[in-house]
């Protein structure tokens, strides 16, 4: 279990939030723009756009949710409360499509809009919720729920909670407690379930209670080749690296090959590939003892740093690849 604190832990949400009905409605602003600016959500959405490539359907849904909460706030100010909307969500998609990343951002956005009080994320999997013996599960699940209150409970690979092959499985007990809290303590926490698409579908089929309590099912598509490249550039940029022209071409080839291999994990595979390329670059530079390195050299990833990857397999034997690959190739 990991807990990620809210960025602005100390910030008092009453300052931006507060859904109390004002005495004199003429004094409060019902301009959505003003409220948006006030909450700082606009910037959050902008950084979301800037820092995360693609994910159009996800971003659209987040904007919709932000709009709903915003309007709900305005409505409350003129006494039109409909009660807090249900915001439990499910994130489905393949590995490395950004589910965890978005969940963290979501918590921040919900916090800014005053929907969750603290805005931290508690990320758990089955082992954090389900016990080993009779009487162990309920306290374990409750403990996690208590920690998540005021923020977001993120349950990764949620389908492991339900093991139909074992009718005495304690997962069911955990699910029932979750259901209760999701229903009765909506304003205390938001539950986000995440996992692969088909398995989540099956999980929801066998647990209609959970499905019906989830208002937002958000699907994370696989990234296209262009998006993966853009993600790579973004990551390199953040780490202050650049690709040489040849390295860029090598990376395109790399991604194409890597994508067709099993255990491809979208953006995570890209991050891992870049980490390994950094390793090879460092190795290559260290091998040049006795020479001054330029800032440029320290920044640049060359084609050989990428082509040395196992993904290229025999293709390294190809003439043009072999040339690029001549320098360092860890055996």
């Amino acid at each position, binding site marked *: 279990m990991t807990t990620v604190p809210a960025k602005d832990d100390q910030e008092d949400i009453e300052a931006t939030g507060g859904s109390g009905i004002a005495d004199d409605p003429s004094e409060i602003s019902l301009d959505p723009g003003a409220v948006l600016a006030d909450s700082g959500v606009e910037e959050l959405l902008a950084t979301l756009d800037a820092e995360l490539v693609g994910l159009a359907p996800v971003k659209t849904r987040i904007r919709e949710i932000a709009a709903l909460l915003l309007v709900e706030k305005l409505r409350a100010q003129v006494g039109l409360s409909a009660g807090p909307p249900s915001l439990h969500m499910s994130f489905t998609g393949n590995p490395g499509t950004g589910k965890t990343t978005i969940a963290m951002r979501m918590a921040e956005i919900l916090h800014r809009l005053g929907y969750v009080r603290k805005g931290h994320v508690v990320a758990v999997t089955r082992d954090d919720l389900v016990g080993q013996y009779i009487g162990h599960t309920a306290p374990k699940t409750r*403990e996690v729920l*208590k*920690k998540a*209150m005021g*923020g977001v409970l993120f349950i990764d690979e949620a389908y492991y909670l339900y093991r139909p092959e074992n009718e005495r499985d304690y997962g069911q007990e955990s699910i029932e407690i979750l259901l209760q809290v999701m229903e009765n*303590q909506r304003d205390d926490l938001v539950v986000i379930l995440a996992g692969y698409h088909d398995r989540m579908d099956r999980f929801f089929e066998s647990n209609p209670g959970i499905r019906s309590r989830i208002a937002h099912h958000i699907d994370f598509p696989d990234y296209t080749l262009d998006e993966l490249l853009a993600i790579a550039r973004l990551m390199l940029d953040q780490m202050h690296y650049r690709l040489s022209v040849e390295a860029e071409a090598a990376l395109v080839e790399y991604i194409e090959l890597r994508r067709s291999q099993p255990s491809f994990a979208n953006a995570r595979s890209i991050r891992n590939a870049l980490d390994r390329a950094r390793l090879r670059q460092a190795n290559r530079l260290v091998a040049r003892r006795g020479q001054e390195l330029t800032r440029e050299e320290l920044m640049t990833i060359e084609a050989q740093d990428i082509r040395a990857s196992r993904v290229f397999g025999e293709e390294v034997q190809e003439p043009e690849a072999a040339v690029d690959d001549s320098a360092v190739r860890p055996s």
Partner: protein
Amino acid sequence: MRITQGTFSFLPDLTDDQIRAQIEYSLAQGWALSVEYTDDPHPRNTYWEMFGMPMFDLRDAAGVMAEIASARATFPDHYIKVNAFDSTHGVESLRLSFIVNRPEREPGFALVREEAAGRSIRYTVRSYAVDRPEGERYG
């Protein structure tokens, strides 16, 4: 006779909102909260029964409030208190402890005299409530 043990006990009973505010304060200080109960009101009875485990790493009072609600439902006629524990090295003790539930009727204490050697007398107090066995004392 109204038992006065712990912080705030000379004030009127705290409302739930006031309890929540105290808990928020404690959490902001980084203290761990726990809930305890007893039906033995003797002032020297400082170790009450634990209601569940102490709660570490909470961010929000809602979790503790839920625990208090569940303790009240289980022991409506017991004394229930909330403790805030500071685990800072060198402190490692309670910072705050206050009663959040008490029996509707608190019968008070009898003064007990014990004749000791040499015609001296020892005094002590004994709660009327503890004349009955544990669990049957109030309500």
